[in-house]
């Protein structure tokens, strides 16, 4: 909202400079966004709030400044040159829906000479950023920006049947607006109609046919009040936001209508106009004023500072509120109709705080009365997981939660995507059902910008419908690795990433989160090349998958390099209790190790061998390490050779060589039966 320094002076005798005024605005929350010097005047762009329609006119802003500076608000008389006929001789006003139009005032001004506005008026109109049109239109804008009450002027002679009917639009009715467009009206919209047709969309915009032209001489002034929600719905539906609708949807002072009509009529008298006698004021259900209780004690309780009663009374009175003291320092405060925002005690306390000055309220420490233990360690676990991935050289990314439905189709995530009703664009019209498409886009972006390798992860939600009416938000971890790895040493060549770099990071991640029941299983998954993907299992429950991205998918993103990626369901993982940590004593006696090399059938996988080795039940066996897997010339076809080092230890003494020999025999015989091994 633009506020002119000179215009404010019509309402209050300012004693401060325009610069000081800007300061005052900020103090009371009318934030100055910019200041302009126009034609000797100073114009402020002020941030106004949705609950303060009274500040959408200079009068309301003047009232604030007058209160702050303790100056009186000036009142002005609006003299009229009157006709002998009364208003109802010219026009009849009928409100069909007093819910949507609680008040409607009208006056007729005859014999107006339509033409350019005088300089003072043009200056005002330009100050608020509008273009002067003609004296009648400019007067209505002047009234609107003075009082915050939008008014509309009709060419009286174009109103059929000399009637104004405030009613809902009829099905199929149309109107050509002042902007020149033909608008189709719908039955919930309120219109101003004459005997036969709508002549204005109530509170939004007037009709072209009944508008003021150069030929107009008789003007009908409408100064009415409309229901905020109805105006808002109409304006939204029509995609029209006007100075009038902006004010009405915020709630215009129900008592401003008569003054605004009189003010406009009075100003039109300067252009030869003569005004009909007696304001027509249709106001069927008079609104009662609100009273809000206020306790001085409560002000201190909420603000944390004692504010003197005199300051409270002076400030609220200045703002047009009426205080009646019930008991000492307890008031019943009558709220004027222009302050639609003041309903509760807290609202009044804010007024007092604003004028007292937020800077004068002391700063104190918020007292703590109890400490709480965190309900879960989810956030810590997520950070731990990120740390493991940083350590493995993965950078963290954050992608939009939106996805392109066309792109997601390629992935066949098997999840029912959630569609947005009003997306920013068709390419971001669904919510992502997987993190991997985003990670791939990141890889492409970086390869196009000189990156040689991309190793990234994201922790974030994916979203999908579980049933028709049931949606799910699932916290996931996506990891991707492609291209060259960072070298460990400057004179070492960069190496291509591979599947096991990804798998290693995942194994570490589970390990450092305290989960040790991790296993993998080959899987056919739409994201991955056939035979090149694993399902990740935690105690037999699937928690994710990893593999080599299917080349069709990679190609559709124009990615030539192999891409290894994984997706893990964290919501599921973080619900699980990891193995509680417990300290194990450091062994006091030396251990010993023995190696064993054996052949197994080549279709027995590493994980199976590992599992069988874990199952070994042999005394003193402390652990094992598979240190070689070999297939080649020296190995019979269909076989694969494994070499394992076994570690043995006795807790309370040093082991004898013979005991270890016996244990090794035991191991060999167990493995012969479980894995059908042949010793090499």
């Amino acid at each position, binding site marked *: 909202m633009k506020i002119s320094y000179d215009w404010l002076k019509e309402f209050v005798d300012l004693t401060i400079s325009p610069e000081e005024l800007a300061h005052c605005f900020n103090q009371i929350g009318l934030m100055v966004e910019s200041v302009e010097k126009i034609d000797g005047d100073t114009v402020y762009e002020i941030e106004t709030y949705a609950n303060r329609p009274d500040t959408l006119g200079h009068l309301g802003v003047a009232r604030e400044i007058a209160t702050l500076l303790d100056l009186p608000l000036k009142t002005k008389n609006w003299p009229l040159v009157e006709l002998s006929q009364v208003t109802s001789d010219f026009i009849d006003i009928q409100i069909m829906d007093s819910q949507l139009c609680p008040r409607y005032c009208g006056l007729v001004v005859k014999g107006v000479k339509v033409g350019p506005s005088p300089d003072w008026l043009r200056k005002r109109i330009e100050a608020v950023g509008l273009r002067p049109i003609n004296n009648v239109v400019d007067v209505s804008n002047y009234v609107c920006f003075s009082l915050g009450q939008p008014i509309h002027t009709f060419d009286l002679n174009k109103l059929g049947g000399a009637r104004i009917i405030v009613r809902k639009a009829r099905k199929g009715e149309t109107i050509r607006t002042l902007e020149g467009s033909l608008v189709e009206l719908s039955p919930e919209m309120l219109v101003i109609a004459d005997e036969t047709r709508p002549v204005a969309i109530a509170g939004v915009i007037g009709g072209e046919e009944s508008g003021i032209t150069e030929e107009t001489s008789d003007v009908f002034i409408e100064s009415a009040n409309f229901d905020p929600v109805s105006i808002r719905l109409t304006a939204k539906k029509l995609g029209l936001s006007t100075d009038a609708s902006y004010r009405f949807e915020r709630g215009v002072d129900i008592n401003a209508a008569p003054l605004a009509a009189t003010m406009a009529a009075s100003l039109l008298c300067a252009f030869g106009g003569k005004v009909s006698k007696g304001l027509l004021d249709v106001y069927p259900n008079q609104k009662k004023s609100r009273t809000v209780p206020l306790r001085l004690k409560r002000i201190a309780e909420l603000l944390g500072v004692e504010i003197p009663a005199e300051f409270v009374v002076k400030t609220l009175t200045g703002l047009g509120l009426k205080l009646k003291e019930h008991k000492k320092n307890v008031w019943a405060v009558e709220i004027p109709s222009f302050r639609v925002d003041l309903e509760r005690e807290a609202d009044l306390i804010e007024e007092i705080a604003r004028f007292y000055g937020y800077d004068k309220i002391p700063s104190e420490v918020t007292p703590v009365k109890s400490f709480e233990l965190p309900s879960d360690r989810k956030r810590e676990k997520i*950070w731990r997981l*990120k740390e493991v991935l940083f350590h493995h050289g993965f950078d963290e990314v954050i992608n939009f939660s939106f996805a392109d439905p066309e792109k997601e189709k390629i992935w066949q995530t098997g999840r029912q995507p959630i569609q947005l009703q009003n997306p920013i664009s068709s390419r971001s019209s669904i919510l992502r059902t997987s993190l991997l498409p985003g990670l791939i886009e990141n890889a492409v972006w970086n390869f196009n910008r000189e990156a040689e390798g991309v190793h990234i992860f994201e922790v974030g*939600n994916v979203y999908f419908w579980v049933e028709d009416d049931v949606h799910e938000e699932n916290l996931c971890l996506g990891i991707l690795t492609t291209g060259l790895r960072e070298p460990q040493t400057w004179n070492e060549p960069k190496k291509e990433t591979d599947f096991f770099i990804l798998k290693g990071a995942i194994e570490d991640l589970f390990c450092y989160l305290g989960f040790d029941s991790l296993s993998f299983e080959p899987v056919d998954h739409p994201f991955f090349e056939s035979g090149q993907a694993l399902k990740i299992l935690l105690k037999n429950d699937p928690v994710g998958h990893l593999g080599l991205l299917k080349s069709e998918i990679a190609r559709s993103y124009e990615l030539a390099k192999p891409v290894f990626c994984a997706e893990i369901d964290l919501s599921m993982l973080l619900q699980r209790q990891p193995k509680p940590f417990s300290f194990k004593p450091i062994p006091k006696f030396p251990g010993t190790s023995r190696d064993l090399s054996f052949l197994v059938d080549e279709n027995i996988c590493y994980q199976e061998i590992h599992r069988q080795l874990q199952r070994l039940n042999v005394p003193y066996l402390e652990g094992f390490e598979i240190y070689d897997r070999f297939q080649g010339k020296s190995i019979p076809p269909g076989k694969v050779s494994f070499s394992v080092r076994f570690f043995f230890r006795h807790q309370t003494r040093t082991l004898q060589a013979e005991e270890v020999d016996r244990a090794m025999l035991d191991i060999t015989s167990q493995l012969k039966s479980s894995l059908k091994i042949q010793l090499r």
Partner: protein
Amino acid sequence: MSTLQDKIKEYRQLFTDLASKVKEAKEAEELRQLFLGRKKGHLTLLFEELKNLPLEEKKAAGKALNEFKEEIQKLMTELEQKCQTRKPERLIDDLTQPGRKLYWGSPHPITLFQREIERIFISMGFSVEEGPEIETDYYNFEALNFPPHHPARDSWDTLYINDKLLLRTHTSPVQIRVMEKKKPPIRIIIPGKVFRRETPDPTHLPMFYQVEGLVVDKGITFAHLKGTLEYFIKALFGEKIKLRFRPSFFPFTEPSAEVDIECIVCHGQDPHCRVCGGSGWKEILGAGMVDPQVFKNVNIDPEKYSGWAFGLGIDRMAMFAFQIPEIRYFYENDLRFLRQFNRK
């Protein structure tokens, strides 16, 4: 038959000859074994011979032999020390070459900044709460005192899923969810992803991150809000940062405030400052005392309890703190951008 003394002379010569050829520690060890080995060392054998000598010769020969043993031991020690220092193949010719490094991945700047904010509030006894990103109109608006069809909703332009569901426009619905479940005292912060129907530009995106804070207890005042936020901003931007509180409007707080901090780029000196537009101030967060209607909506008696709340945009704050000109950098995930935060 040569006397023991002759043998000592021979062995001394032998030792000198062999010692001159020793270059490595391994060879020195072999020499030591040859002379001093416990079972078959030359000296051990000579001591064996000593046993067979007649008593009158034994004394003098024993003395000579002991002296010879000490001599050999001394020479051996010297030789071994020399071998240890002389390992030419292990010497590095250029010590100024870089050391071996590991590449550590970089946290996303939003994560970093969010953690920094969390850390400050956790140090003041706050706990961290989270909530769903897909919300209902009730939690996102109505419970927070936004009447249906009120223009106040215009500043929270919403992405809708259907008539019932939407993407939360702020993390405030979590305030409601927590207050529904838990009795005061409440002392929480709520970080998270939020969504608005904003056309992308250098400072706006349809998705960004917020942190909100909420304190509810008996006797909580606006002065507590001021004190806490001042501490927080100083902890984040340094002791000397100036800040101001000015009145504002939010449907869910009354009184409401906005907090501006001094422009750390121009300090109000540059009328064309890209960051503050010359005003010298940068709007950084919104706050206020919890609106009594919000309390009523969650069955907390506003006569008994009061509270304060604040909310800030993590992206915007990080942009200001790190001088990042465009918000979209955060979501392009360009490694040249992300990896800088490794050093933060």
